[in-house]
C-alpha cells in the first residue's frame, strides 16, 4: 500500500538502527519517553525496541486517552447510561474500562443503552434519528479528538438537536508532561512527541520541553520508520549536546498547528480548574469542559452526577506505568489478577495501553531472549 509500505521497509529500518547504534556511548544509558500510546503500540507490534542498542531504554508515557480516565468518571458515564430514556454513545475502547462496579460493557449487558460509535457525529446522528431519547456522547481524548467533538457540538447547536449532549473528558497534553518533567525520579534524556496531538496544537507547542526543562523532543509519526528516525534525531541531539523541539512528522505536522481546529476548541471548550487523571491524581488546568456558551449541551449540567472521586484499586499500579516509573511487567498484578480479559487497570484495556501492548505482543520474544 502506497504511503504505508514505504514506512515499514526492513532495509531502511536496519540502516536507521545501525545509525542509532553509532550514536550511543557504550555503557551510557539513555532514557527516552514515547509520550503517546500509539507509539507504544507500534514499538511492541514491530518489536522496535529489539532493534535498539542496550543503552537506549524506551519508557512509556501518559498519552493513552483511555488509560487516563479515572474510575469516578467511568462510574458517572455508567450512571448516565443507566437512566431511563438515555442512550450513551462511546468509542469501543471505553466499553471494557472498569469502573468501581463494572464496565459499560457489563452495564450494556444488564440493560443500559450503550452504543459504540466511530465518531461523535455518529452520536449526533443517533440523536437526530431517535428524537425520543436523550443521547449523550462520552467524549475522551487529548487535543487530537477534541476538535471533532467541538465540531459536533457546534453542529448540534446549529441544527437545534435538543436531545443531544456531551459528557466531556477531553484532556490536554502539556500539564501531565510538565508534571512528569517536574518529578525528580524520572530522569529522562529525551522525549518522542505525540504526532497526532501535534497535528492539532503544532510542534511549537512543545517548546517548553526544550526551553524550560532542557530536554530534546522529537515529534514523531506512527510507522516503524517514523519512530526509528525520531529516536535517531533525539539521540543526535543528545550526542551533540543540543536540546530543541524537532519535527520528524513534517508530512502531517506544522509548527503552529491547525488554526481552524484550535479555534473551534477555543469556542466550544473552556479549561477546567482541575481534573483527575487515573493514577496521576488531580492536575490543574489539565482538561477541557464545555464553555458556558455551550452549557445547554453539557451532560454534566443536564444530569445530576455523583462526580465522586473513586480511588483506584489498591493493587493497581497504572499511575506508575503511565508515568514511566515502572514497566508493565513490574506491576504487582500484571498478567495474574490483571489481564486483557479481566482488567483491573485501564492500561490493560486499551490497545494503546502499555500493559495491553506488552501483554498482547511482546511477551514471548522477550521470554525467549531472557532464557536463551
Amino acid at each position, binding site marked *: *500500500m502506497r504511503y*504505508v509500505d514505504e514506512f*515499514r*521497509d*526492513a532495509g531502511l*529500518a536496519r540502516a536507521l538502527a545501525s545509525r542509532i547504534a553509532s550514536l550511543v556511548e557504550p555503557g551510557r544509558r539513555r532514557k527516552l519517553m514515547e509520550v503517546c500510546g*500509539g507509539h507504544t503500540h507500534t514499538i*511492541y*507490534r*514491530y*518489536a522496535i525496541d*529489539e*532493534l535498539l542498542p*542496550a543503552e537506549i*531504554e524506551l519508557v512509556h508515557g501518559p498519552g493513552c*486517552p483511555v488509560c487516563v480516565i479515572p474510575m469516578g468518571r467511568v462510574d458517572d458515564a455508567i450512571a448516565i447510561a443507566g437512566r431511563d430514556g438515555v442512550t450513551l454513545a462511546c*468509542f*469501543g*475502547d471505553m*466499553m*471494557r474500562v472498569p469502573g468501581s462496579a463494572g464496565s459499560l*460493557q*457489563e452495564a*450494556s*449487558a*444488564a440493560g443500559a443503552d450503550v452504543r459504540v*460509535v*466511530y465518531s461523535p457525529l*455518529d452520536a449526533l446522528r443517533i440523536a437526530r434519528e431517535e428524537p425520543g431519547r436523550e443521547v449523550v456522547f462520552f467524549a*475522551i*481524548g*487529548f487535543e*487530537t*479528538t477534541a476538535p471533532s467533538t467541538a465540531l459536533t457540538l457546534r453542529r448540534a447547536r446549529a441544527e437545534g438537536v435538543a436531545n443531544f449532549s456531551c459528557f466531556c473528558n477531553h484532556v490536554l497534553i502539556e500539564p501531565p508532561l510538565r508534571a512528569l518533567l517536574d518529578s525528580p525520579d524520572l530522569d529522562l534524556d529525551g522525549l518522542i512527541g505525540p504526532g*497526532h*496531538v501535534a497535528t492539532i496544537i503544532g510542534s511549537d507547542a512543545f517548546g517548553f520541553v526544550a526551553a524550560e526543562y532542557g530536554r530534546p523532543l522529537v515529534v514523531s509519526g506512527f510507522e*516503524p520508520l517514523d519512530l526509528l528516525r525520531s529516536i535517531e534525531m533525539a539521540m543526535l541531539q543528545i550526542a551533540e549536546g543540543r536540546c530543541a523541539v524537532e519535527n520528524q512528522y513534517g508530512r502531517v505536522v506544522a509548527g503552529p498547528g491547525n488554526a481552524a481546529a484550535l479555534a473551534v476548541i477555543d469556542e466550544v471548550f473552556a479549561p477546567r480548574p482541575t481534573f483527575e487523571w487515573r493514577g496521576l491524581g488531580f492536575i490543574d488546568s489539565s482538561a477541557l469542559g464545555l464553555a458556558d456558551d455551550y452549557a445547554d449541551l453539557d451532560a454534566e449540567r443536564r444530569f445530576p452526577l455523583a462526580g465522586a472521586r473513586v480511588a483506584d484499586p489498591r493493587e493497581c499500579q497504572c499511575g506508575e506505568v503511565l508515568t514511566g516509573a515502572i*514497566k508493565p*511487567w*513490574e506491576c504487582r498484578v500484571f*498478567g*495474574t489478577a490483571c*489481564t*486483557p*480479559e479481566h482488567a483491573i487497570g485501564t492500561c490493560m484495556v486499551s*490497545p*494503546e495501553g502499555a500493559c495491553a501492548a506488552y*501483554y*498482547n505482543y*511482546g*511477551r*514471548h*520474544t*522477550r*521470554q*525467549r*531472549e*531472557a*532464557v*536463551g
Partner: protein
Amino acid sequence: MSERTATRDGGGRERRIREIVATARGKRPRFRDEIVTMAHGAGGKASQTLIEGLLEPAFGSAALAELGDAGAVDAGGAALALTTDSFVVRPIRFPGGSIGELAVNGTVNDLAVSAARPLALTVSLVLEEGLESDALRAEVEAMASAAGAAGVEVVAGDTKVVERGRCDSMYVCTTGLGARDGRASVGTRAIAPGDRVLVSGPVGSHGTAIMLARDDLGLDADVRSDTRSLWPAVDALLDAAGPHLRCMRDATRGGVASALNELARASAVAVTVREREVPVDPPVAAASELLGIDPMYIANEGVMVAFVAPEGADAALAALRASPGGERAAVVGEVADDPPGMVLVETPFGGSRVMDLLAGDPLPRIC
C-alpha cells in the same frame, strides 16, 4: 541478546512474570463472568471461556472435546460429520452476499474443513414480525441457490415468528450432515512441527464488507464478502495432498489469527506466521489501516487455513490455487514445537511478536 535483555529489563523477574502468564494461558479457561456480554460472541478469549469452560465440560463428548468445526458420528459403518451454526448478521444483505447464502455456506464449510463431503442441511428460521415477504423470499432463494451450488439438499426445517423487536429481521440456524472423506485423516490435534500453514485466499473481506455495509464508518470502498462453499477447494486439496493434510479450519469470526490460536493450542504446537505473505486485498488493507484493525482478526466466510506436512505443501498450494477463489492462496508460515500453544508473527525487521486471541471484538483506534 540474553545479556542485554537481562540488564535492561531486570531479567529474572520479567521472565518469571512471563512464565506465570504462559502457565495461566495454557490452563483450561474458566467461565466465571456474571453475565453474558457481547465479548462472549466475538470469537476471542471470552468466547473461548464459554466454549471450553462451560459447554464442552457440560456435554462431555469425545467429539466435542476435539473442538473441531464438525463432530464425528459413526453410525452403522458410516463415517459421518455433524455441525450446526446460527447466523445473526446485520444488515441481512451486503455486498457479495446475504444471510441466506452465509447460512448455507457457513455450515457447508464447517463440514468441508472437517474433510467431510456435505450431504444434507436443515434450516431453521426465526423471523421478526413485520419482515417483508420479499426480503424473506430473497433469502430463501439465496439459500436454495447456495445449497444447489454446494451440492447439498435441504431435508428438514422449522419456522418461528417472534414479536417485533425480539429479533433483528431474521435469524437462520442451519445444521449440516456430511460424509467423512477417506482421503485424509484430519484433526485439531494432528498438527506437527514442520507442517506448513496455508491460507486459501485474501483475508478480511467479509468482515470489512459488513462493517462498510453498516455505514457506521462513512467509508466507501468496493469490498465484497468472500462467502462461498469451500468444498471444491477442500476436494482439490484431498485429491492433491490427502495423506499429508493434517487439519483445516475456516477462519470465520475472530479471523485467521483466532483460527491459528485455537489450533496451536489444540495441537500444543507453535505456529509462526510471516505477516507479509498473508494475502489481503488492497481496499481491505486500506480500510483496516485507517481503522487500526488487524485484518488477521477480521471475519472471513470463504477462507480457510490448512496445515499440511512439508512433503505435501507444494501440491496442496497448487491445488488451492487452481480452485475457485483460491487464486491467491499462499503458504504463510510453519509449525514448530516451542512455545506450545502460541502463534508468533515474524516482523519485517527480523523480530517476532505474539499474535494472541483478542479479549473481545477488534477495536478501531481512537486517535
